[in-house]
């Protein structure tokens, strides 16, 4: 059960809240309200527009870089390796040379 003292305090608080509403009644805006609001809206619009344009530039630049890299990968360059690594090694070091270095017996080279 609610204590009578609590009820009194609650009632006093309710009265205080309604007086607060009376102390701060609904009020109309000043003459500058709408012009200032539109200025803020337009200011935000300009900022958004600038950010949007900047991001468009970034997207365009990123796309251009991607295309550039893709082209570089797609176009074959002149010194492309046609044989395997082992073939290249065999060509560079013929078996005769290996025998002179003592890696292979001379009998094996024949």
């Amino acid at each position, binding site marked *: 059960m609610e204590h009578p003292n609590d009820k009194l305090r609650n009632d006093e608080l309710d009265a205080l809240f309604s007086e607060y*509403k009376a102390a701060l009644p609904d009020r109309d805006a000043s003459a500058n*309200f709408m012009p200032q609001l539109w200025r803020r*809206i337009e200011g935000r619009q300009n900022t958004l527009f600038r950010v949007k344009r900047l991001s468009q530039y970034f997207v365009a630049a990123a796309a251009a870089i991607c295309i550039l890299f893709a082209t570089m990968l797609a176009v074959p360059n002149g010194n492309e390796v046609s044989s395997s690594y082992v073939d290249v090694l065999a060509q560079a070091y013929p078996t005769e040379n290996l025998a002179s270095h003592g890696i292979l017996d001379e009998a094996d080279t024949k």
Partner: protein
Amino acid sequence: MLVEFELIQKAQAGDGAAFNQVVVAYRKRILGTIARLIGRPEDVEDVAQEVFLRLYYSLDQLRTPEVFEPWLYRLTVNASYDYLRKQRRRNEARMSDLSEQQVMMADAAAGGRVSSEEHRLKQVKDLVDALLGSVSEQDRILLTLKEVEGLSLKELEKIYGVNENALKVRLFRARQRVLNAFEANQKGRSAKPVERKS
């Protein structure tokens, strides 16, 4: 609803005149609510403009007319909450620069310039502001919407998007805290009670 949904639809489509009409229809109510939520008349228009600015940029997300008003209230609550949070930080810094005597002198000087009725209303306002200062910004706003603005739990449910029971619990706790602060204030003033309306 203070305006027809067709008007809101026109505003959604980018009709500036329609948006103007929506603002004109709601601004008095919103200004009053903000004044009571933040308790600082000098900053009310600034916060209200922020509310309508957010409304302008989020209007395209509105689908049904029934939710327009709770939605506008939600924008009001959010903008007021942002303001109160900033204000609390600013006040902490500012008040720490003033001695208690300076604060009392400033208060007395402000009191001397206004009529006795204005002075009494100012006392009520200051007292409620101080009491609401004993709870968090969110609870202050919730309590003000319920106790001062007189919104029902159903309306609050739509604004906050939480169920009635959760709101009841939160409101009860916030009110208890305010009541405790009120009691402490009354005890402190027992030698010199606050002037009240007869």
